[in-house]
């Protein structure tokens, strides 16, 4: 343990802390410049839509099931909730998509019928159907981790694209393009 007395010259082990720190600093510097993926991408993209049947979320519209996505054309599946603030922000964009002839089927997460009705009254109703997912069961099956999220479901019934977060005006064209690809 105890080696004696003053020695001149450099001792190699004294550089080890600096070397370790340099490695850490390089790594941290590299990681800081990397884009951080904030959202969890669903692994379901490219796979068929899982089977589900959901009760109507309120009296005004029928419920939703996986069968509703069959036949003819690609559709949007919008996961939302009346208690979710970004969902209010994306309402005009959904309205715009609906006006262009896109069929949007909603799934309301952990919601109450009266709240759903009030939300649609206030912010417009772009949906043809809304299913109630009281315990996020379908949401989890879809690999969605939050609200709002929007999936493009192809005419063949497979999940083609996942949009995480609210749809902003600049995303409308992107979703239109994805819908066309999904023909």
């Amino acid at each position: 343990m105890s080696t004696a007395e003053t020695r001149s010259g450099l001792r190699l082990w004294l550089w080890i802390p600096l070397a370790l720190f340099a490695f850490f600093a390089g790594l941290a510097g590299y990681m800081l410049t990397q884009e951080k993926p904030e959202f969890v991408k669903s692994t379901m993209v490219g796979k068929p839509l899982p089977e589900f049947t959901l009760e109507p979320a309120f009296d005004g519209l029928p419920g939703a099931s996986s069968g509703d996505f069959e036949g003819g054309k690609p559709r949007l599946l919008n996961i939302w909730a009346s208690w979710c603030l970004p969902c209010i922000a994306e309402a005009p964009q959904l309205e715009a998509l609906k006006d262009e002839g896109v069929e949007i089927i909603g799934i309301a997460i952990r919601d109450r019928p009266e709240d759903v009705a009030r939300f649609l009254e206030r912010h417009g109703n772009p949906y043809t159907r809304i299913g109630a997912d009281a315990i996020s069961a379908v949401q989890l099956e879809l690999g969605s981790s939050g609200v709002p999220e929007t999936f493009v479901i192809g005419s063949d019934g497979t999940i083609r694209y996942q949009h995480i977060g609210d749809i902003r005006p600049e995303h409308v064209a992107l979703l239109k393009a994805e819908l066309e690809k999904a023909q």
Partner: protein
Amino acid sequence: MIAEIGLAALWLAAALAVLQMISGAAALRSVDGSTHPLAIYARPAAIVQAVLAVLAFLMLLRAFAITDLSIKLVATNSHSMKPMIYKLTGTWGNHEGSMLLWVGVLALAGGLLAGLEKRLPEKTMGATLAVQGFIALGFYAFLLLSSNPFERLPVPAAEGIGLNPLLQDIGLAIHPPTLYAGYVGLSVAFSLAMGALLTREVNPNFARAMRPWVLGAWVLLTLGITAGSYWAYYELGWGGWWFWDPVENASLMPWLAATALMHSVSVLAARDALRTWTIMLGVLAFSMSMLGTFLVRSGVLTSVHAFAVDPERGAFILALLLIYIGGAFTIFALRASAVSEGKRFAAVSREGALVFNNVMLSAILAIVLLGTLYPLLAEAFDARVSVGPPYFNPASAIFAIPMFLVMAVGPLLRWKEDKPLRVQFEMLLIAAVLIATLAIVALAGDYPLLPVLGLGLAAALGVAAFLPLRGRKLSRVPTAVWGMVLAHFGVAVSLLGMASEGAFTEERLAAVAPGDTVEMGDWLITLESVAPVAGPNWTAIEARVAARLGEGEAVTLTPQARNFWSPAQATSESALLTRWNGQLYAVIGAQTPDGRWQLRVWWKPFVTFIWYGGLLIALGGVLAIIGRVQVDVKRRKAAELGEERRADLAALTPEPAE
């Protein structure tokens, strides 16, 4: 005006940090005997700087107290409806405010050092203050250039956004300030180590000057970690007390380094050995503090602790790390070879045991550091991993177990050289307690290995902690030794709590309707009712749960599922029933579709010992500080007296002829 005063104080403090740096550096240039004319400013600059930085912090505190919504930080982090105590604690519940607290404590530590430390040679002191000023300057720059807490809004906000509800808790009132004071207190050890290295004054005198600072910072870190652990335990509602989360690790790593440093500095003070190693640890301990700050504030790691993260700020702190840690390790590598090793000692000796445990502590530190940084490394290669207890627990236990064993025997050994046979009675006693406990637990049931070993070690350590007192007259035992005994006993108590929680915890998760009773061990738990309740800024579903032990009287617990509205967030408020031998921990969850409620209860025997142990450890540290300061004061008085006598003698005896 408040914001302007605060900001002006910060700028002035930054300017004084520059003066302190220049003046301290000038002291290094002093030729023997005479001091450099600039050198006299270092101490006053440090003291006035401390006053200004504390003033800046008080101004921000005031702004939060009166909810001055023209200040951006207040508007984004506070709310006029919050209770006063949480308005105040909200001051440091955000990035800018907590960095201001950081800087305030840093300046205060520097000021105290400048005002109190009179033993070191002026050159060493100058170098130390220069380093301290240099560190402070970097953090002032960070605060003023990228995290200005006093920024005004162009138009005052109508109402504040609020504070993360998890942080609206009394735990937050004490946990971060204590931890910060500990983190930053280590800056003094860092500056002293650099000062001693630069002036080649690494000796027992320097160690004695450094020791109270290390002890003080270590006590505060211990308290901060203990409080933080308890806060996470009852506030997060997961029933766990340590999650190996990056932010927790960020506080544990400086503590491990400081624990090693505290012991190593004692060896240096008492025996003039371990010079280089002590300097290394001095640099390392504060480096770990800054590294922790970086990890927490930059957002390179994901953690359950939701801090506002900002890559730009991360880059700024990383640059500071490069300057300070990189610079310090470079100077260390260049200079330390010129520091002689110090006195020799045998493997079996007090020093030997301390060195062994220093190495073990460093190994645990390396394990925690590796586990904390590994996700970062993996992510650089596009793999996402999360490192948790399955890695940390066994990996740190490999080094902790031998460390505890040596810790039981080490204090019994003599300095320099000893024979194991001399302490054979004590060693046999410790071994007997260890083996007996292990045998009893092993016979009592089938428990996991680590908790069982933990119980055995806790019992052995609990006995061993008091053995250094054997054969001594208790009234004559120095205060510092009492401190060691108490701190080591605290480790045993804490370890007992951890092991007992790990081995004997009973858990029950049930869906119950009001009126239902579930059984858990000897406890009968009845859900009596569920009702909505409202607080100042939240509403909640509150369950009334009656807990009965056997035939005993029922005690009512009221766990809540709270919803805060500004900002909107749901939290789970656990309810605790504390008995001398453990805690009952109840959480109410969501309602099931058929109208029943998820009720989760744990019985955690002796879990409270974890935190009692932490408090004992800290108390031991306080006793050690008192003891050391007492001895120092006595020594100084004796020296003064001796000098007076010599002066008197000199005055009485006629001048000797040349």
